[in-house]
């Protein structure tokens, strides 16, 4: 995989505040890269530096192995923080203006408007749009130049559940086309659903990076229930049981390494017990995120 983005020692100080501290990162082509972190952890500042709107204090980065300049930015689609458009221009005219800046054909505009389902509102002024429509227009604008890299910063900020689901579907659709996506978010559930890799930032420091599917490796938790009186005693007998925790009328069984949910199922069956509820729970990114954050405290 070719390296799309390479960051070396990137640092940004705002006066005495260190917003981003010595960040090193590589993003390869085709990855959907999630940047996680609490509010104020330096996600947007980092993306701002990568897009040339914030001058870094020190360090460097390169896009596609090239020194960054404005020509490179024309090949990247980016939405940082809020959608930004001229309020007195219509959606269509805003996109025409973007096309002029990115020097890409205006023929792309109907396609992207169709994709984000804004075609019927194209001639209304931007200021009349709802927040969800503004977000969608921003995504349309980011896709306008058919970029190979897409940067989205909190794309579902302030959206209702339906809007969030729509944007998530959209991201999946775009990722399926082989585009590299960098997604900054503090909605972990979202990142786990769409990302392949992730990094965790805290107070400007990167404290973890790795593939998302690694998160679900390791200890598994199985939620069990059966119509047996001494179920917890039986479960304790299972050699793969690490601990048992009754919760919401179910038993949460944390398994030892190398044991899977099906092993527990087989064990119960051998004991003559048929479970009426058995769910294998993967470790959530949220849990891992909180673990990582608390470890560094």
């Amino acid at each position, binding site marked *: 995989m070719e390296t799309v983005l390479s960051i070396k020692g990137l640092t940004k100080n705002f006066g005495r505040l260190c917003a981003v501290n010595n960040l090193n990162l590589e993003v390869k082509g085709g990855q959907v890269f999630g940047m996680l972190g609490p509010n104020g952890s330096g996600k947007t500042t980092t993306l701002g530096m990568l897009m040339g709107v914030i001058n870094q204090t020190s360090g460097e980065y390169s896009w596609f192995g090239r020194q960054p300049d404005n020509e490179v930015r024309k090949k990247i689609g980016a939405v940082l923080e809020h959608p930004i458009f001229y*309020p007195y221009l219509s959606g269509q005219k805003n996109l025409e203006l973007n096309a*002029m800046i990115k020097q890409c054909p205006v023929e792309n505009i109907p396609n992207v408007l169709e994709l984000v389902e804004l075609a019927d509102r194209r001639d209304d002024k931007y200021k009349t749009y709802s927040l969800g429509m503004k977000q969608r227009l921003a995504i349309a604008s980011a896709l306008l130049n058919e970029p190979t890299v897409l940067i989205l910063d909190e794309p579902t900020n302030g959206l209702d559940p339906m809007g969030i689901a729509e944007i998530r579907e959209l991201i999946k659709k775009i990722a399926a086309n082989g585009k590299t996506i960098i997604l900054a978010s503090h909605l972990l559930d979202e990142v786990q659903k769409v990302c392949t890799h992730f990094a965790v930032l805290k107070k400007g420091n990167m404290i973890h990076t790795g593939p998302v599917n690694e998160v679900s490796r390791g200890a598994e938790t199985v939620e069990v229930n059966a119509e047996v009186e001494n179920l917890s005693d039986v479960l304790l007998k299972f050699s793969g049981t690490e601990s048992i925790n009754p919760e919401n009328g179910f038993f949460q069984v944390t398994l030892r390494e190398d044991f899977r949910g099906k092993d527990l199922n087989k064990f119960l069956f051998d004991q003559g017990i048929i479970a009426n509820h058995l769910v294998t729970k993967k470790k959530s990114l949220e849990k891992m995120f909180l673990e990582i954050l608390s470890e560094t405290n």
Partner: protein
Amino acid sequence: MLHLLQIDLKKLTSYRTFWIVCGLYFLTIGFSTASGMEFLKWLANTFDKFGSELNINRIPLYHFPDVWLNLVWWSGFFKVLLGIMTVISITNEYTYRTIRQNVIDGLSRWEFLFSKILTNLLLSLTSVILVFLIALVTGFIYTPEINWNYVFTDLEFYPAYFLEIFTFLSFALMLGIFIQRSGLTIILLLLSYMLEAIIKANIDDFFPWLIPFFPMESISALVPLPFYRYAFQEIQDYVDPLSVIIALGWAILFNYFSFLKLKRSDL
């Protein structure tokens, strides 16, 4: 280069305020310059002695070649309207934060600034052409006998007028980039002549040689007050090269300061 101008014009031409301000500018210039004779007639009718001591038809306000300098000098007062337009255009980019998105989308900071400078050049040029046309028409209407030798003399005031407008717009652009808020910028722009006058009054006794180097002073000096000629029969009927150099220097400096500020700031 044309591409950058098109980008900035695309932002402006759908902006209603732009048309209102430009419309006001061209209307006020058009009406006020074209109605000078009417004003003199009004003076003559209102004040008895005015008409008897002075034959208004002998004041060659609109006669070639006087008309060139007279109208250029008078139109200079209205440049503040164009300056306000420039301020609105740049401070909008900060208010809406579109300057940030423009850079994200692929303009370099210099390209962004240059698109604004190009618009300033275009506004200045439009103003020059407008005043030239008004002067040409009124000149032909009011000059009793057209002497073709006089029709196209004294035209060097038009390049000087162009420089006057452009330097002022560069100043407005720089103020907007440094202050970023429209109201405050417009107030400062309106006060700039007065503030400079105060400073000049205070240093007049110590460094009188410094006076011509002040920015507003230098652009005013480009086009001298023409009416002395009717009182004293003498007039500076040429463009002072020193004030051209000083005004040009300021225009370059203003835009350079804008560039430095843009380059260094986080958007």
